[in-house]
């Protein structure tokens, strides 16, 4: 892949893809950076080739139909023939161009992915054409799940899904959501999803007021102290009443 590196840097510059995202705030030394596993790249290649096979099949059918028409069909009046040839040329060009562009994007998309976590927050960056950077604090995380399909299992990867509170609607009004549920973050294609899950979960538990609700619910965490003090207060008040009744 000798052409790859120069083309990559040129494309990144042309598309103005920003470099690695800055780290979210957190305690020093708590930063962990996860990347998509090599299996994810293979998985994406497979999906890409499947899609390309379909596109190629479509193009072959279109070309075959034209050739068949020329060979066995009735004669076509002059402009029609040229138009048909032009259309076929356009189809071939589109198929070729999107193949190379798509192949590049698969590789770039794999390389331009970062999943960062500190003790307070996580930041996920993905995308090449549309760059999406998401920041979520652990205090706002509601639930974690691992998703794995049969193909992903074959490649030894899984997606870790992190959700914050709020509607999981399809975003069907689609105005600003780009068809993406903004309350959900994905660690896509990691090969140690369970480990990452446990780690995120551990940090989640440390965020004492995690989940939805007003922060003053944290008062309950004063728990034992609070109850024992109240008990003492009651005993003292009772003693005072006894003393005054004597």
């Amino acid at each position, binding site marked *: 892949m000798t052409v790859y590196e120069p083309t990559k840097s040129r494309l990144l510059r042309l*598309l*103005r*893809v*920003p470099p690695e995202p*800055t780290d*979210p*705030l957190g305690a020093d030394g708590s930063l962990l950076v996860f990347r998509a596993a090599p299996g994810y790249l293979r998985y994406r290649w497979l999906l890409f080739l499947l899609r390309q096979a379909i596109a190629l099949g479509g193009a072959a059918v279109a070309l075959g139909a034209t050739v068949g028409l020329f060979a066995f069909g009735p004669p076509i009046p002059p402009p029609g023939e040229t138009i048909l040839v032009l259309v076929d040329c356009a189809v071939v060009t589109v198929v070729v161009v999107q193949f190379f562009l798509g192949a590049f994007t698969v590789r770039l998309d794999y390389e331009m992915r970062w999943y960062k976590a500190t003790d*307070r*927050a996580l930041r996920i960056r993905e995308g090449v*054409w*549309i*760059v*999406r*950077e*998401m*920041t*979520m*604090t*652990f*205090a*706002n995380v509601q639930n974690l799940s691992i998703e794995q399909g049969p193909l992903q299992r074959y490649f030894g990867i899984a997606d870790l899904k992190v959700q*914050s*509170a*709020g*509607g*999981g*609607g399809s*975003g069907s*009004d*689609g105005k*600003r*959501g*780009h068809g993406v*549920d*903004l*309350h959900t*973050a994905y660690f896509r294609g990691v090969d140690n999803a369970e480990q990452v899950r446990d780690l995120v979960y551990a940090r989640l538990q440390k*965020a*004492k*007021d*995690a989940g*939805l609700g007003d*922060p*003053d*619910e*944290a*008062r309950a*965490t*004063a728990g034992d*102290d*609070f109850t024992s*003090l*109240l008990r003492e*207060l009651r005993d*003292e*008040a009772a*003693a*005072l009443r006894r*003393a*005054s009744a004597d």
Partner: protein
Amino acid sequence: MDPKAILAIDRPHPRLMKLYLVRAVFSGPALLVALPILWFRYHTMRYRFDEEGISMSWGILFRREVKLTYARIQDIHLVSGVLQRWLGLADLHIQTASGSATAEMTLEGLLEFEAVRDFLYSRMRGARDSAKHGPAAAADETLALLREIVRELRGAREALERGRA
């Protein structure tokens, strides 16, 4: 970037109008409808950052104003397409826990989007150590007050018993 500079932001950058123009051109025949809408949207768009939250308003016939507090922000998305990056812009989608899957507020046309993102991030829930201030501090204060009440009651009882004796 200095938070004061962010608190002072009240208008999107003029490049946003350029972006709108290009988008309107790409919308083809809808240009005639899209362009005036976007033009008014750009010219009526106002931001106000204060100590508690942000408000954003736009619209001329149908006016809209969105206000949210920093502490209720759930997650922040920084999204940029190729066109926006060429212009040096990005969208900040801000989400609270309300029922929609789409953003509650989209800050557009900010050149200093990264600084604004970090500004919001440092003020959202869970970004700081809440053990040192906020709710935990309030709980500590409650405990201290209760201890004081216990002391006062004990003092009152002892005074009463001494008076009897």
